[in-house]
C-alpha cells in the first residue's frame, strides 16, 4: 500500500534528521491524490513540496527518495539480470581485468551518447556499465562508493572527456576561440557528471534489490549540514555552511541587541499630544520614545592553531559573517601570541583572501606554533583591557588545549569582571574536556557559559540562549 511505503519513507527522512510532522505527512498523502503517480518527477515534486521545508535538506531527501522509490523496477524493455552470477566472460571484464572488445564497444557507445547528449541511451549504457564493470556480488557488505569508483575507473572518464573534446574540436575545424574551447569542456564535464549520476543510481538500485531499501537507506545516510562535525568538515561542507551562517549571524545580531524591551523609554510629549487629537485632545494614551537598542560590543578570540585548523576556518568564517552585522566587532586570532584581525574582515573583502592574509600577516606565532592560551589572554589583557566595558561580550573559541603551559585562568577571570559576559565555545566533545592537556574546567569558572559547539545545531542553540537575559547575561561583578 502506498500509505505504508510513505510511512516508511517519512521514517527514513526523520532518521536522517529532517523534521517531518504528522500534518505534513497527511498533506503529502493529500497531495498524492492529485498527482500522476506514473510520473516520477511529479511524484517526487509532490513529496518534496509537502515533506521538505528547507532547501538544505533537499539532498538528503533526494537520496532517500532514490532508494525508496522508482528503483525497484527494471528499466522498461530490459530484462532484469539482477544479481545472477556473471558469465565467465563478464567476470573477466568485471573482475578488474579491463580491456576486451566488449569494453571497447561500450566505451564507443558511451562516447557517442555523451556527444549527442542522448539521455535514454546514456541511461541504458550506464546500466550496462554497472552490470559489466562494477563486479557487484549479492550479499557482499561493500558500500556503493566502492562500486562507483570501480566502474568509473574502468570507464576512464578522464580519457573519455579528452576524446570528446578532441572530437568536438576536430568537428569545428580548428576555428575555435579559447572561450569556445572552455565552454565545450565545461559542457562535456557536465554531461560526464550526469553519467556519473546515472551510474550511481543504477548501483543504488541494485543494492536495494539485494539488501532491501531500509538497509541501503541506512548506509547512505549522511549527516545533515547542521550536524556535520566542524572539527572534521570537508571543504565542500564549509562552502555549504557558508550559506547557513548568514541567517545565523543575523539572528545573533538581533538577539544580542534586543535585551531591554521598549516601554522604559521616556515620555514622548509631541507624540502624545498628536495622538490625543484622536480623542478630542484628551491625552488618554501616553506615548513613549523607543528605547535605544543596546549595541553590544563583541570581542571574538579565535584559536587558529593546527589542531583547530578546520574549526578555526569555520570560526573565522563565522567571524567574517558577523562583522557584516555588528559595527562594533573586534576579532582576534591567536596561537601562542595574539593579534587583532578585525581589519582583515572589512566589508567588501573576499573571505579566502582575508584568510590568506591572516595566516601570513597576523602575528599569532611567538615561539613554536602550539597553542598557549595563558600567554594569549595575557596579551589581550595588557593591550586591550582598556576597551572592555560592561557592554562588551567576549567570545572565545578553542579546545582549551594549552600544551601544558600555564593557563593563567585568573586573567580570564579579570577579563570577565570587566565585560558583560564571557562565552567559551569548545568544538571538542564534552567527554574529552580536561583530558590530556585540556584545561577547560580551569577556565570554566571565569566564563558566563561554556558550550560544546561541534556542529551548527549546537551553535544555533548557543545563539538561542544568548537571547535569554536570565541565563547569566550579567556575571556577578564581585
Amino acid at each position: 500500500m502506498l500509505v505504508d511505503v510513505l510511512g516508511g519513507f517519512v521514517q527514513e527522512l526523520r532518521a536522517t534528521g529532517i523534521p517531518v510532522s504528522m500534518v505534513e505527512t497527511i498533506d503529502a498523502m493529500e497531495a498524492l491524490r492529485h498527482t500522476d503517480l506514473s510520473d516520477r518527477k511529479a511524484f517526487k515534486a509532490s513529496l518534496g513540496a509537502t515533506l521538505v521545508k528547507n532547501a538544505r535538506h533537499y539532498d538528503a531527501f533526494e537520496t532517500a527518495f532514490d532508494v525508496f522509490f522508482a528503483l525497484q523496477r527494471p528499466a522498461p524493455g530490459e530484462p532484469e539480470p539482477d544479481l545472477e552470477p556473471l558469465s565467465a566472460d563478464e567476470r573477466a571484464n568485471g573482475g578488474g581485468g579491463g580491456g576486451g572488445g566488449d569494453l571497447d564497444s561500450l566505451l564507443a557507445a558511451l562516447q557517442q551518447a555523451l556527444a549527442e547528449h542522448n539521455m535514454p541511451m546514456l541511461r541504458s549504457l550506464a546500466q550496462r556499465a554497472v552490470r559489466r564493470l562494477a563486479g557487484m556480488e549479492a550479499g557482499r557488505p561493500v558500500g556503493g562508493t566502492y562500486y562507483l569508483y570501480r566502474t568509473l575507473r574502468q570507464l576512464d572518464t578522464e580519457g573519455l572527456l579528452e576524446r570528446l573534446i578532441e572530437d568536438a574540436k576536430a568537428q569545428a575545424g580548428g576555428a575555435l576561440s579559447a572561450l569556445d574551447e572552455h565552454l565545450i569542456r565545461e559542457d562535456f564535464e557536465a554531461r560526464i557528471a550526469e553519467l556519473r549520476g546515472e551510474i550511481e543510481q543504477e548501483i543504488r538500485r541494485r543494492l536495494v534489490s539485494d539488501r532491501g531499501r531500509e538497509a541501503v537507506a541506512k548506509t547512505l545516510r549522511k549527516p545533515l549540514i547542521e550536524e556535520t562535525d566542524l572539527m572534521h568538515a570537508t571543504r565542500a561542507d564549509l562552502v555549504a555552511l557558508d550559506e547557513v551562517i548568514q541567517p545565523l549571524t543575523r539572528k545573533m545580531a538581533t538577539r544580542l541587541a534586543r535585551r531591554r524591551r521598549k516601554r522604559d523609554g521616556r515620555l514622548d510629549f509631541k507624540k502624545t499630544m498628536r495622538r490625543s487629537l484622536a480623542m478630542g485632545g484628551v491625552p488618554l494614551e501616553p506615548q513613549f520614545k523607543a528605547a535605544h537598542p543596546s549595541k553590544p560590543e563583541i570581542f571574538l578570540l579565535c584559536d587558529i592553531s593546527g589542531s583547530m585548523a578546520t574549526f578555526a576556518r569555520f570560526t573565522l568564517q563565522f567571524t567574517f559573517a558577523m562583522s557584516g552585522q555588528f559595527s562594533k566587532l573586534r576579532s582576534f586570532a591567536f596561537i601562542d601570541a595574539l593579534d587583532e584581525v578585525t581589519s582583515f574582515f572589512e566589508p567588501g573583502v573576499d573571505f579566502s583572501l582575508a584568510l590568506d592574509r591572516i595566516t601570513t600577516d597576523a602575528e599569532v606565532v611567538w615561539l613554536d606554533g602550539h597553542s598557549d592560551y595563558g600567554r594569549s589572554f595575557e596579551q589581550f589583557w595588557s593591550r586591550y583591557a582598556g576597551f572592555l566595558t560592561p557592554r562588551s561580550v567576549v567570545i572565545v573559541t578553542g579546545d582549551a588545549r594549552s600544551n601544558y603551559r600555564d593557563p593563567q585562568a585568573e586573567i580570564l577571570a579579570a577579563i570577565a569582571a570587566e565585560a558583560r559576559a564571557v562565552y567559551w565555545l569548545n568544538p571538542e566533545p564534552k567527554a574529552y574536556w580536561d583530558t590530556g592537556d585540556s584545561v577547560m574546567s580551569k577556565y570554566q569558572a571565569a566564563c558566563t557559559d561554556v558550550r560544546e559547539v561541534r556542529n551548527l545545531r549546537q551553535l544555533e542553540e548557543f545563539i538561542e540562549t544568548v537571547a535569554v537575559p536570565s541565563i547569566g547575561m550579567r556575571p556577578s561583578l564581585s
Partner: protein
Amino acid sequence: MPVDAFSSPSEVLDALKSVDYLADDRISQVVFLAERLGKPVLVEGPAGVGKTELAKSLAAIHDRRLIRLQCYEGLDEAKALYEWNYKKQLLRIQADEGAEWTELESDIFSEDFLLTRPLLEAIRSPEPVVLLIDEVDRVEIETEALLLEVLSEFQVSIPELGTVAASSQPLVLLTSNNTRELSEALKRRCLFLHIGYPDVDREKEIILARVDGLAEHLADQVAKVVRSVRSHDLKKPPSVSETLDWARTLLALGIEEIDGGVVTDTLHVLLKYQSDIERVAAHFSED
C-alpha cells in the same frame, strides 16, 4: 486567455509559458498542487531567479488581480491588515455633535471608516486574487504569527466588526531570500518550493523568450558562460535577471560572437563585486 482551474501540471507549464515564464516540472507541479489543495506556497531561492515574477505570471494567466504585501522590518497589523481611519471618524463625530453615542459608535466603526491593507483586501475581494507576500523573511517573528492566522484560516477578526471570512480563496505565494529561518509553524502550513538557478537549456530558453532579437547561438553562449561563471566561488553569483541584463547589453552593443575579450569587458553587468569580477576575469584570460 484566463484560466479558471488547471487539470494537470503540464497545463500549468504551458499557461506559464504563454506569458513568457519558463517553469520547470517542479514549479508547475507545486503550483498545480497549491491550487488543488488551496495551500500557500513558500518560494525560496537566491535573489533574481524569478520568485516574484512567478506570482505576477500566475496573476496574468488567471487574469486575477495581484495584491502585493512587501515585507520589511517593523511591518505591523496596521500596515498589513487594516487600520481605522481615525481622522475620518473624528470628522464624523464633530459633524454630528449631540448625536446618541451608541448610534454614533456603530456608525464610525463601520466599513466606511476601515482602511484595508493588503491582507484584508485579498481576503475581502469578491473575485479570487493572487496574494504575494514578498520577502517574508524580513518581518519579525511576531508579525509572522499574524500572517499565520490569516493564511491558515483565511479570515481576519476585527474586534468592532467581527470576523471577516474570505469570500474567495486567494492563491497565496510567499517569497523568502532566506536571510532568516522562518518559523516551523509557518513552514508547516505552506508547500515549499525552492527555485534555484536554471540549467543551461532552460536558461537559454528564458533568454530567448525574454530578450527579443537575440540570435540563438548567442543565447546558447550566454547561458554557457553564465554557468561557467557560477561555478566559481563567488560572493554574489549572477542570477537570471543579471543574465538577462547581460544578454540585453550584448544585443545593444551589437556583438555577434562572444569571446574572452567581450566577457571580460562586460563582466560588470553580471557581477556586482570587484573581487568577483577580478576572479572571473582572471579565469577567462588564462586560456
